């Protein structure tokens, strides 16, 4: 059989051998994902560099397609001597799978991939002393600027480099690299008996982009504004979620748009394509190359080009997001949404509205503005859409943000919010998580508090 593959040798793995062996074993197609990841993490505590953590990892995912079924093996022990064992195991695993839907390995033909020039700053080249000085400067300025900052649990600097490569026996050969660094701080503010913990992350693509003064200002103003927070009386309140928190909710509930979840009857949106499922104010887009996003994706983990698409357009549900298998089930073009072993968004956001935040809350007499949610992993149910989550934020009184509150539980349903939300502001922010939103006035939700 003539094989036209652009074969390259990596240090630990010889694809040619793997692909040829797979053909010998009558595996229909073989795909190998290679992930290289290097990190450095430096932690400052009590004015001392207290931890220095470094990593160097190279991992491989081997995927096999046999009689239209596909599965994978994840390996961190890699060499060409294990080819037979791995391929035999893979084939055995595939034979056990019993679903009827077809799966695929992508050959890339007829596809065009966007070209993106990622900012690939080499953080390793920055002298270590500069990184230490950054941490010391950050700590010093934080303490200088606030008399209520009682302790800094930690300040850390992190840098991350990764290289992802996908090759397969059908000729696919794709590679992408990314690097970033991040400063983070966990700060404890105290006034009388009141304690507040503020955790903030500041990612950058270039070392020179770190802006300590800006970060200090943000942390101090937030920490001090939260002091004195008390719980609220239980009841029903008009609720506004901050831009960051609504982005977090969108992230947590994004499974409702997964083709796989829908197919398995685990999403209420099954069969609702082209139906109105939200207020006409709601437009949700998944754009892999979104200008504000930190990382831009040109292909997913199946090598499928990532596509810009409406998920909800002016309240109408447009489509699910897919991997190769579910796009075939739904008889639609693949969307390039398979990452880290599951179907997920690339860069997803709620389109901003026209009103300013101030305008949006001007009509609220007695409400709450939630800027912090904790317990999302437990309090979210993406099948029913129900949520019940610990929250904190600021009271809204006569159209203005007033005193802080904390130790309440906000409960509601995400599908109801999409349908009944009152307004979306224009204070848009796009997060490192790959989700973005403006502040949203969702209407009345129940709040559980002190009474």
């Amino acid at each position, binding site marked *: 059989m003539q094989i036209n593959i652009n074969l390259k040798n990596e240090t630990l793995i010889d694809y040619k051998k793997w692909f040829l062996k797979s053909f010998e074993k009558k595996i229909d197609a073989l795909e190998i994902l290679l992930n290289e990841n290097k990190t450095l993490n430096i932690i400052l505590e009590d004015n001392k*560099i207290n931890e220095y953590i470094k990593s160097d990892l190279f*991992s491989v995912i081997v995927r096999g397609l046999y009689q239209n079924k596909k599965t994978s093996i994840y390996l961190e022990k890699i060499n060409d001597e294990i080819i037979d064992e791995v391929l035999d195991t893979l084939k055995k695993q595939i034979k056990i799978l019993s679903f009827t839907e077809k799966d695929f390995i992508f050959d890339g033909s007829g596809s065009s991939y966007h070209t993106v020039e990622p900012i690939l700053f080499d953080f390793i080249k920055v002298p270590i002393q500069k990184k230490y000085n950054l941490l010391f400067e950050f700590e010093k300025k934080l303490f200088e600027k606030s008399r209520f900052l009682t302790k800094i649990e930690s300040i850390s600097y992190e840098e991350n480099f990764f290289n992802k490569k996908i090759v397969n026996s059908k000729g696919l050969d794709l590679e992408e690299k990314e690097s970033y660094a991040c400063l983070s701080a966990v700060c404890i503010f105290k006034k009388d008996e009141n304690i507040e913990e503020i955790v903030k992350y500041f990612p950058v693509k270039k070392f020179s982009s770190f802006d300590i003064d800006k970060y200090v200002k943000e942390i101090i103003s937030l920490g001090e504004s939260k002091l004195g927070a008390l719980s609220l009386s239980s009841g029903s309140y008009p609720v506004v979620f901050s831009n960051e928190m609504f982005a977090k909710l969108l992230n947590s509930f994004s499974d409702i748009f997964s083709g796989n979840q829908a197919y398995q009857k685990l999403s209420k949106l099954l069969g609702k394509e082209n139906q109105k499922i939200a207020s006409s104010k709601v437009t949700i887009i998944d754009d892999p190359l979104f200008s504000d996003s930190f990382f831009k994706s040109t292909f997913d983990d199946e090598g499928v080009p990532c596509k810009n698409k409406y998920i909800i357009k002016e309240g109408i549900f447009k489509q699910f997001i897919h991997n190769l298998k579910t796009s075939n089930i739904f008889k639609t073009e693949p969307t390039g949404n398979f990452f880290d072993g599951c179907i997920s968004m690339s860069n997803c956001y709620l389109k901003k509205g026209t009103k300013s935040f101030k305008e949006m809350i001007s009509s609220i007499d007695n409400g709450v503005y939630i800027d912090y949610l904790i317990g999302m992993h437990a309090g979210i149910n993406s099948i029913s859409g129900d949520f019940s989550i610990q929250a904190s934020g600021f009271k809204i009184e006569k159209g203005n943000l007033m005193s802080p509150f904390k130790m309440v*539980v906000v409960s509601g349903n995400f599908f109801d919010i999409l349908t009944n939300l009152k307004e979306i502001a224009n204070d848009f922010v796009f997060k490192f998580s790959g989700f973005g939103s403006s502040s949203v006035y969702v209407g009345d939700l129940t709040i559980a508090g002190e009474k």
Partner: protein
Amino acid sequence: MNKNKIVRIIIKLYMLTKLEIQSILKQSLSSNYVDFAELFFEDSLTNNFKIIDKDVVVCQKKNVYGVGIRLLNKDKEFYIYTNKVTYENIINLIKEKQQIFEKEKTITPVVSLGKIKNFKSKVKKKFDSLTVEEKIKKMIFLSQIMKNFDKKIIQTIVGWEEKQQKVLIANSKGVFKQDLRPYIRISLMSVTKEGKNVQDFGESFGFSSGLEIFDNINFKQKAIDVAKNALILLKADELKPQKMIVVLNNGFGGVIFHEACGHSLEATSVAKGLSPFCGKLNQKIASDIVTAYDDGTIEGSWGSLNFDDEGQSTQKNLLIEKGILKNYLIDFRNSLKMNMSPTGSARRQSYKYSPTSRMNSTYIEAGEHTSEQIIKDTKYGFYAQNLGGGTVQPSTGEFNFMVNLGYLIENGKLTKPIKGMMLIGSGQDILLKIDRVANDLSLSQGYCGSVSGYVPVDLGQPTIRVKEIIVGGSKK
């Protein structure tokens, strides 16, 4: 025995030879930058199966393999992890220690590694005592038990995760141990639908043992219970948000103690002065009827270990005795800061994490009442029957946890089923508000996430009653 054969066997078992490991430890401490060195080798294999209805939809394998190298100078830490496990690579990596450490005047000697300590497996039925097909058959059986239970059950999912974690720990104090830790976890889920109302209920069961769990647990009954609860949720009401008396079921009810107290007793927070229980040893932090332990030695339990992830033997740690705080959970590095003994509580998800103090199997000890008595004695309250996960912020003591299914208590009786709400409180308050502890202690399993990754833990308690907690209801 042939010398070459010995060398080959050694390489296969240890990734590196004992001589190489000894040499790495010696070189780590040479030139006086470092006073402690540790190597954590890991080779883990996980098999994952998932059934949806009758179909096998997932059949995957994952191999985690690598080494974590930890160097300390007092409590300052240098940690490197990699899966490029060769002697040369490790020697090269540890040279970077000079980025963080300064040269000291005194030299710390390295204790020679003696004979490696192995642990006898307590597994009665190995994972390969059943073929994959037999395992699938069991899973499909349980899935169909749930699916056929009622027409309103529209989907069922059964998960099977089995893991064998091989670890080898060697350090400059002479610790040289290896172990094979087995883990098996079965999860069951039913999804129900009635009109537009869709609900789901799930439970999982995990052990550090072998397939003998199928002899010890009636999984068929567990599957029926899951199906029943998923159906009850269709009829379950919402509650108005309020503060109320809460009776927490035994077993996973222990998540309240795990969040309200457990994390705040880990040296991870205490050593930094960031726990409401700092400086409170031998002081009252809970009501008199609360005695609690964290135990790493319960044979076969999900949270148990022969030795912790620093090679220290696990132990049963008395945390609270009749309301008085007796001890914290302490790892080696934090023991240096706190000037207290380590408690065999150092854990990490894998070689990719530096260890720190974590929980193993945490529980409130059984009391004297019965759960029926406690409910009977409650005029109005909430019975939290099935709990989900939770979170805590040790610096403030504020915690939360989810109740997936509960019942309203009215005049001492369980009345309406209530679905999905979060409960919150602060650890300092809640422990003092426990006013009843029943005699039906039971352990449940989960994964606990923190700075050293996700680790398997047991959470346990008897049925307990808390005088008041904020209950998040969604009824307007």
